C-alpha cells in the first residue's frame, strides 16, 4: 500500500501521466500521432535538449543556474565546425574532443567567476551568454560552416542506426542519461551536490568541498553543452554563428523545471528531467500535426512553465503536510 502510494505521489508519475494523456488526446484527433514513425520524430527532436538538461539539472540542484548553455553550445560547435572546414586532414572524431573540451573550459570559467568572486550565477551566466555568443561571431568572422564541410560520417550519426532503426544520437543521449543517473544516485560526489543544494552552510560544515563541487557542476554543464554542440552539427549539418543554440536556455530550463527540479536547490531526479524533456518534445511534435500555427507555441510553452511551477508548489506543500502528519 505504502509503495503504491509513494509511487503515486512521486513527481515523475505526474509527468508520465501528463505525457500519456497528451499523447492519447492528440492521438484521438490525429491517429497518426500514435505511430512508431511519430515516436521516431519525437525522439529525434529531444537528444540535444536531453543532454544539456542533464547538466542544467546538476547546476540547479547545487542551487545555481546556467543561462549560458545555448551560447556554449554555439561556440563549441563553431570551433569543431571550423576545424572540420579548415583542417580536413584531422580525423573527424577529434571534433568531439574539441567541442567537449571547449565546452568544459567555458563552463569552468562560469564556475570560477561564481566561486572566486562569489557572484550570483544568474548574472554571471547572463553575462557569459552574451560574451560567448559574441566570441562565436568573432572566431568565425560571422561566417556559417556550411553543410559540405561537416563530415558525412558525423551527419550520418543522426540518420544511421545500430539497431531497430534508432539513430546513434538517441543512444548517445540515453547513455548520458544513464551516466547522470548513476552519478547522482551512486557516487559520493553526486550525493554531495544534493547536500550542497539543500543546505550550503550545513554541507560545508559536514566537509563537502563547496567550491570544488560548484566548479564541477558548471564544468559538467559546459562539457555537455559542448557535446550537444557537435551533435547539433550532426543533426542539422551546419553551424551558424547566430542560430546555433540561440534561445536554447529557455527550452532547457523549461524542461528541467517541468521535470520537477526545484530552483531552490537540492531537489531533482534524472528520470524526472528525462520525462520533462519528453513532454516538451511531444508538445513540439504535436503542434504542427494539429495544425496549430507556430505563433501559438510561445504562449503554450510559457503556460506549461507556469503550470509546472504551480504543481511544484502544491507537491511541496503536500510534502510538508505529510511530514507534519508523520511527526504527529
Amino acid at each position, binding site marked *: 500500500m505504502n509503495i503504491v502510494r509513494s509511487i503515486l505521489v512521486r513527481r515523475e508519475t505526474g509527468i508520465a501521466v501528463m505525457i500519456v494523456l497528451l499523447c492519447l488526446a492528440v492521438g484521438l484527433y490525429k491517429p497518426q500521432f500514435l505511430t512508431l514513425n511519430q515516436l521516431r520524430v519525437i525522439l529525434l527532436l529531444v537528444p540535444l535538449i536531453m543532454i544539456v538538461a542533464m547538466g542544467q539539472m546538476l547546476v540547479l540542484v547545487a542551487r545555481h543556474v546556467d543561462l549560458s548553455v545555448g551560447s556554449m553550445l554555439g561556440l563549441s560547435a563553431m570551433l569543431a565546425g571550423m576545424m572540420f572546414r579548415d583542417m580536413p586532414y584531422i580525423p573527424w572524431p577529434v571534433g568531439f574532443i574539441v567541442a567537449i573540451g571547449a565546452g568544459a573550459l567555458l563552463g569552468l570559467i562560469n564556475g570560477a*567567476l561564481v566561486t572566486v*568572486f*562569489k*557572484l*550570483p550565477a*544568474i*548574472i*554571471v551566466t*547572463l*553575462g*557569459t*551568454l*552574451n*560574451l*560567448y*555568443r*559574441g*566570441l*562565436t*561571431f*568573432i572566431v568565425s568572422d*560571422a561566417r556559417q560552416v556550411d553543410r559540405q564541410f561537416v563530415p558525412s560520417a558525423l551527419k550520418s550519426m543522426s540518420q544511421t542506426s545500430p539497431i531497430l532503426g534508432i539513430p546513434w544520437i538517441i543512444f548517445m543521449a540515453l547513455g548520458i542519461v544513464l551516466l547522470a543517473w548513476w552519478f547522482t544516485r551512486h557516487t559520493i560526489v553526486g550525493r554531495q551536490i544534493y547536500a550542497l543544494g539543500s543546505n550550503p552552510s550545513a554541507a560545508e560544515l559536514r566537509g563537502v568541498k563547496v567550491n570544488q563541487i560548484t566548479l564541477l557542476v558548471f564544468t559538467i554543464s559546459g562539457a555537455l553543452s559542448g557535446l550537444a554542440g557537435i551533435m547539433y552539427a550532426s543533426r542539422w549539418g551546419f553551424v551558424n*554563428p547566430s542560430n546555433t543554440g540561440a534561445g536554447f536556455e*529557455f527550452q532547457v*530550463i*523549461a524542461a528541467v*523545471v517541468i521535470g520537477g527540479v526545484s*530552483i*531552490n536547490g537540492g531537489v531533482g531526479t534524472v528520470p524526472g528531467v528525462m520525462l520533462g524533456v519528453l513532454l516538451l518534445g511531444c508538445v513540439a511534435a504535436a503542434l504542427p500535426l494539429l495544425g496549430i*500555427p507556430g*505563433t*501559438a*507555441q*510561445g*504562449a*503554450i*510553452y*510559457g*503556460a506549461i*512553465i*507556469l503550470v509546472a*511551477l*504551480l504543481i511544484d*508548489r502544491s507537491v511541496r506543500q503536500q510534502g510538508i503536510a505529510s511530514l507534519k502528519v508523520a511527526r504527529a
Partner: protein
Amino acid sequence: MSTTEASATPSTAVQDAAPARPFWHVALVRPETMTLVLLIAAIVVASYLSPYFLDLGYILRSFTLSAEFALVALVLTMVIIAGEIDLSPASNMALSACLFAWAQASGIPMPIAIAIGLLAGLAMGALNAFMVIALQLPSIIVTIGTLTLYRGLAQIIAGDKSIRVPDWFIGIDKVMVLGIPVPVVIFIVAALVLGLILAGTIFGRQIYQIGTNEVAARYSGIRTRRIKLILFLLIGLVSAVAGMMTASRLGSVRYDLGLGGELQMVLMAMLGGTAIFGGRGTILGTFLAAWLLVVVSTGMTVANLLPAIQLTVLGVLLIVAIIATNFIYSRTQR
C-alpha cells in the same frame, strides 16, 4: 563578509569601534562613481573610434532608441532593491502595445484603446505579483514563464504581421522639448521622481529594508506584501507606457517589439550598482548606466564595428560591473 574585514584589522578591536569612514570615502567609493567613470571612459573611447560620434544631437537621437527600456529599468531597479526581479517587462511592452494597436485598428476610440493597453500592463503586473506574493513562487522563474507567455499571447493576437497606428500618433521621438526629444525628457523626469521617492520617502526606505531582510522588515511592521504588490503593478504599468512609446516611435506594432529588452534592462540596473540580492542600489546609478549603455552601443555602431563585438563588450561589462559592485559593497559594509 563584514566579519572577515574586521578580523583582518590588527589588535582585538571590536567591530563597532572601527573608525567612521571619512566623508570623501562615503561620497566617492560607491558603485555610481564606477558607472560615472565608465561613462566618461566610454565617451572618450567612442570619440576616438569614430569622428562622427561626438554630436549631442546624435547621442540624444540614439538614446530615444533605448529610452523605453531605460524608463522600465528605473522601476526594475526598485523591484530588484526590494529583493525580487521581473524579466517580463519587455514582453509586457509587446503585449500591451499589441492590444492597444489591435483595439484602435478595430475602430475603438483612441483614449479607450490607450486605456486598454495600460490596463493590460497593470493586469500583467498583477499576475506576476499574484504568483510571486500570494503563491510565494520565486520571481525569477515566474517571470521567465510570463516572459514567454506574454510574448506568446502577443503573437497570437497580432500573428506575424504588424499593426499600423494612426499618423498623428507616430513620432514621439521627433517631438522636442527645449531641443531634447520627448522620450528622453520622460526618462529624465521619471528618474527625478522615482529617485526622490526611493531616497527621500518612508516608502523608499521601506523598499530597502524589505530587500535587506524581508522577515525583519515584516516584524518591524512594514507591509512587505503590499509594497511588493505596488512595485509589480508599477512596473507593469510603466512597461505598458513604454510599449506605447515604442509604438509611436516605430509607427507600427509587431509581436517582436522590444524582443530581448529584458537583458538591457537588467544590464542597466546591474551596471548602475544595484545589488542582485536586493537592499542596495540607486536610481542615479541606473540613470548613469542607461547613458553608459547607449554610449557604448552607439559608439560601436557608428564605428561600423561587428555587432558581435558589442555582445562581447556588453557581456564583459556586466561581469566587471558586478565584480566591482560586490567589491565596493564588501569594503564599505559595516
